[in-house]
């Protein structure tokens, strides 16, 4: 039994590796938020060409920025459910230093997820994934299957991408409840120890980036107007500007209007418009 088991296994691995080598997968294979984060991180780590010139790091807010509205070649390393620190760590551990790093600062005090960074940068798994692409998140059979079904549905039924893949779950109806929650959460500012720890960690990462020749730009994603003026948003803004006075800080102008699904995340049309504004202001 054991022999036949290992033989079946070996044949499947060989067949799947050959399939991945000869059949190009051009569609999105993300299955869930964490999976999409890992795909991004792995794409950055295993990139076969030179490091991208521009990289965006941040949370699910910047995750929504629209690739084709940004400057070509921009790598969006913003990770949903996490924050800027994980993206900065992945850049540092990859040793692939970009020319410019845009840091989204809306979610400044979220707990650092060391497990995520360790999982994608583990040396043993890194070596294994480099040699065997079948081990990478983007090549998971269930993701390939879902991506294929999604492409078919889009082509044959004319269904919009967004209705099929709401990766952060914040679609219109859910968003209504989420905004109520955020209005409560944004009243509270974390204690001094928490803010100091996060700022020190950020400052160390910024110094390292600059030591490797990267320019660092901070930016704030537009939120629901009510949230933008609440204590947490104002405190985050003030802390960054105070701690990094020499750095550029970009935010939406007072007359710009963007629509969110839940107070935090931009709707697709707004995300596209914001991405274009971002490109005009910072990338050209």
């Amino acid at each position, binding site marked *: 039994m054991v022999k036949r*088991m*290992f033989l079946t296994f070996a044949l499947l691995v060989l067949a799947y590796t050959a399939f991945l080598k000869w059949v190009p997968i051009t569609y999105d294979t993300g*299955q869930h938020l*964490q999976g999409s984060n890992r795909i991004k991180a792995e794409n950055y780590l295993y990139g076969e060409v030179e490091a991208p010139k521009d990289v965006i790091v941040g949370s699910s807010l910047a995750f929504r920025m629209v690739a084709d509205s940004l400057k070509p070649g921009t790598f969006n390393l913003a990770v949903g459910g996490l924050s800027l620190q994980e993206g900065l760590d992945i850049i540092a551990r990859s040793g692939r230093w970009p020319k410019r790093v845009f840091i989204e600062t809306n979610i400044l005090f979220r707990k650092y997820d060391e497990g995520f960074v360790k999982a994608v940068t*583990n040396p043993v798994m890194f070596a294994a994934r480099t040699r065997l692409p079948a081990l990478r998140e983007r090549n998971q059979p*269930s993701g390939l299957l879902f991506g294929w079904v999604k492409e078919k549905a889009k082509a044959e039924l004319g269904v919009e991408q967004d209705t099929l893949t*709401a990766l952060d779950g914040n679609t219109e109806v*859910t968003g209504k409840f*989420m905004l109520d929650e955020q209005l409560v959460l944004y009243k509270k500012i974390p204690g001094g120890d928490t803010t100091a720890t996060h700022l020190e960690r950020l400052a160390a990462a910024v110094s390292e980036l600059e030591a490797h020749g990267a320019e660092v730009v901070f930016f704030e994603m537009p939120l629901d107007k009510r949230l933008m003026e609440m204590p947490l948003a104002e405190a985050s803004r003030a802390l960054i500007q105070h701690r990094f006075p020499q750095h550029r800080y970009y935010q939406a102008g007072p007359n710009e209007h963007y629509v969110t699904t839940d107070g935090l995340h931009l709707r697709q049309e707004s995300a596209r418009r914001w991405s274009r504004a971002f490109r005009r202001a910072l990338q050209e």
Partner: protein
Amino acid sequence: MLFNSLTFLYLLAPTFLLYYLPFMHRWQLHLIITASFIFYAYSEPWLLTLLVISICINIVASYGAVHGAPDRRKAYATLGVVVNLSILLFFKYSPLFGRTFFSGTDLGSFLVAIPLPVGISFFTFQGISLAVDAYRGRDLPEYKSIIVKNIWQHSLRSAAFKSFFPQLIAGPVVKAKDFLPQIATKTFARVDWEKAIGALVVGYFLKMVVADNLSEQTFWLTYPYFKGLSSITLIALLFGYSMQIFADFAGYSLIAIGLGHLFGYTLMTNFNFPYLSRSFSEFWKRWHISLSSFLREYLYIPLGGNRKGPVRTYVNLMATMVLGGLWHGAAWSYAVWGAFHGGMLAVERLLHDKFNGPFKVPKLLSTLFIFFSVTLAWLLFKLPKFDDVIAYMQALGNNWSGADMQPLILFFIGLLSIPVVAYHLFHSGNEDRARARRATWRPYAYGIMLFLLLTNSGSGGAFIYFQF
């Protein structure tokens, strides 16, 4: 330390290799204990102190219950049970008492801050089993050989029993009388590779491919995210959670059993296709069998079982299940979950008594009824706050139109549930034919599982039952 981590592999590989070296034969128990202590202390070393204290107390209590002065043996066994229960009560239920009865006071804050040591529910139950089994069998020759006369040997054997790392953190709950007689010199030639590899492959597959991937979807079963989801999606989420909790816990148990085989120990089967059950009593003979048999043997039967009339039987069933519910977690929702199961068991018993035998219902109908009831009750596991459960039920009733359908969730829950459904169906029907089917397809099915383990694992999360 998680079974599904590379760190565990770094511990397992050298332990296994050393274990079977000929010059290590006399040190096998020492090695098991050392590896188990490293396994337990890896994340929070201070917790090892508690485990060691617990082991020491159980060594004394069980030894005294068999080899102590005859008039003190009962006192030793009682001491063992009381101390184990006290440790469990203090560490597990202090926060619940603090929140319920002393909220806002200094005492309340102190009680709430007491940490929950991982696996405490499991190793204290095994401690109880050691003390009780030793006392019950004190005059039987076969029990005398379980609790050996040499105190040093007894200490080693008891420490290995209580700390054996495959089952230390989340079971199966091993009874002393089942484990201690298995202690002997183990040789590499006697490893049952088919059983070990089979259990490990299926266990890791259920955990890492099914449960870990499902957990990314059932995350939306969290307040307030579920409030805007459509009723269909909410039903799918609940179904998905039912699949996930089975895959997670049955997966863990199978890994533990497979690891046990690697070291020459047979741990009891913990899951026997529970979603095929046609009654609640059958469900509890198939789900977490080691716990339900422990509760039956050490709680339900000592309470009187079904020997003291129908009313007392119903009360005993209810009491056993409420305590069993609370064993799972220090929240009243777990007690309600236990009361639900206890109530259903009592109703079944009532119908059984009334109709003088099992209540006749078509097989498919009764299986579906049990599955849906059990699945609905899992909501109390996922949402330990009653307000959240009520909000979920309200959303389930109200969101039939105009809410988010989330095709992504529906697709993946459907896809990832296939292995659990197939796993059950594969074992249903005629037992001989099912066995023949399994024998034919097993190597290929294991090969596919191994392939999916390599290519389709989720993000190695902790096991759900670790919190218990």
